[in-house]
């Protein structure tokens, strides 16, 4: 019988994407398959490359903000926030307290919207169609709120150097508070559909495990890192804006499987709702923007101010040579670093698991291809 071990089966390549419903954008995975089992995977990226880092070298600082919308288009606020924080750090500008609160409210609402999309598409990846529409129902309400203040529903271009673009209206505060109250019950609804569903458990428990040491070695951040059991969150560890004044938990997993990544994100949604609630109740009166010269010329130097986006650490590394345009901009995007572990994780799993595992990575191709 030992001889049978040498028997070979045919291996073949399957090109998953760039046009595929479950790669969440124009990601192409070149899978090496033995039957249904994946023996190797190479992600092929770059279909959405726009050269943002180079473009930024020819733009004034304020002109770069709209480009940051188009990085992680599911949570534009985080990209906005990270960039303006970096510029403020470089130029030594302090925004007024009301602006700081507004920024946190917006960023956390955007985190909710982003996680809702993730939850919806992830359940869709597993073949459960109904949670997708439930999630989009709540996301619509958040987008309505954003539209009320920023005028747009996806790319907000809302943060400004030294503040935000527009003040919150009384209507917004009332609606947002009502939404947060309602949202707590909605999360319970999603969990009722998925968390203990035996098929869902079978598809996610112990699937695609990322060990803590591997997660660190590959430089993962955000929910993917926390699901592996490492509690690290920029909001708590390197607080910016007003996060040090708020009380919230950093949920973490234990195993690092797909289910943990799901659970971490769902619990994060509850925490974000808590943060928004606190920030709304503590919102101070005052100005929402400080005066900043139109042609901002930060002193020569460099700065980096990481922000915890829904996907992990997003950071802009800015080098200024004292002119009105940055000398160099380097963007550290969480999806890019998180995706790098994929070929390590999906080896040995089935084609169907590739979709589930990739779903829990929550990548946004706008971020990966910049």
């Amino acid at each position: 019988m030992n001889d049978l071990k040498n028997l070979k089966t045919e291996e073949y390549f399957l090109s998953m994407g760039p046009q595929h419903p479950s790669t969440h954008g124009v990601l192409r995975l070149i899978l090496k398959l033995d039957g249904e089992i994946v023996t190797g995977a190479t992600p092929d990226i770059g279909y959405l490359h726009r050269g943002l880092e180079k473009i930024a070298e020819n733009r004034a600082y304020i002109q770069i903000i709209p480009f940051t919308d188009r990085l992680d288009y599911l949570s534009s606020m985080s990209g906005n926030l990270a960039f303006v924080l970096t510029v403020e750090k470089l130029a030594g500008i302090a925004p007024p307290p009301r602006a700081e609160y507004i920024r946190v409210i917006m960023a956390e609402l955007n985190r909710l919207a982003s996680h809702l999309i993730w939850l919806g598409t992830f359940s869709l990846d597993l073949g459960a169609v109904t949670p997708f529409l439930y999630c989009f129902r709540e996301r619509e309400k958040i987008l309505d709120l954003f539209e009320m203040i920023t005028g747009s529903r996806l790319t907000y271009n809302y943060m400004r150097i030294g503040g935000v673009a527009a003040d919150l209206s009384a209507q917004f505060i009332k609606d947002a508070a009502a939404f947060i109250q309602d949202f707590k019950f909605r999360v319970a609804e999603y969990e009722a559909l998925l968390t203990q569903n035996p098929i869902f458990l079978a598809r996610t428990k112990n699937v695609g495990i990322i060990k803590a040491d591997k997660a660190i070695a590959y430089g993962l951040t955000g929910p993917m890192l926390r699901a592996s059991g490492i509690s690290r969150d920029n909001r708590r560890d390197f607080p910016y804006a007003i996060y040090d004044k708020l009380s919230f938990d950093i949920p973490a997993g234990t195993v690092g499987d797909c289910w943990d990544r799901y659970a971490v994100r769902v619990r994060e949604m509850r925490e974000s709702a808590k943060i928004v609630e606190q920030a709304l109740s503590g919102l101070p009166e005052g100005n929402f923007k400080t005066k900043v010269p139109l042609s901002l010329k930060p002193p020569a130097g460099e700065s980096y101010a990481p922000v915890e986006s829904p996907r992990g650490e997003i950071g802009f590394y800015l080098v200024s040579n004292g002119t009105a345009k940055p000398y160099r901009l380097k963007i550290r995007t969480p999806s890019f670093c998180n995706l790098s572990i994929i070929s390590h994780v999906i080896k040995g799993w089935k084609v169907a698991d590739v979709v589930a595992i990739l779903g829990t990575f929550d990548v946004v191709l706008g971020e990966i291809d910049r």
Partner: protein
Amino acid sequence: MEIIVLSLILFGIGLFGALTRKNAIAILMAIELMLNAVNLNLAYFSHNLSNISGQVFVLFIIAAAAAEAVIGLAIIINLYREFHKIDVEEITLLKW
């Protein structure tokens, strides 16, 4: 009477296939044709003689054909894994 001739021709075609084909699966299919020819004969006699035994044996033969196909195909798949071909003329070793 026509059915006996029909099954005879069918058997002949199957035999021809089994003799000339090189691909192991094609040979297996030719053998299935021959088995079916035999079954047809049995069913005919069962009908003609109003004796159920013919049909019983057709059932047994179908079961045996299923077993034969399963084992045969398992062997063929193994051969393919080893040699990457299933031409019977090229697979001449009894032991590998």
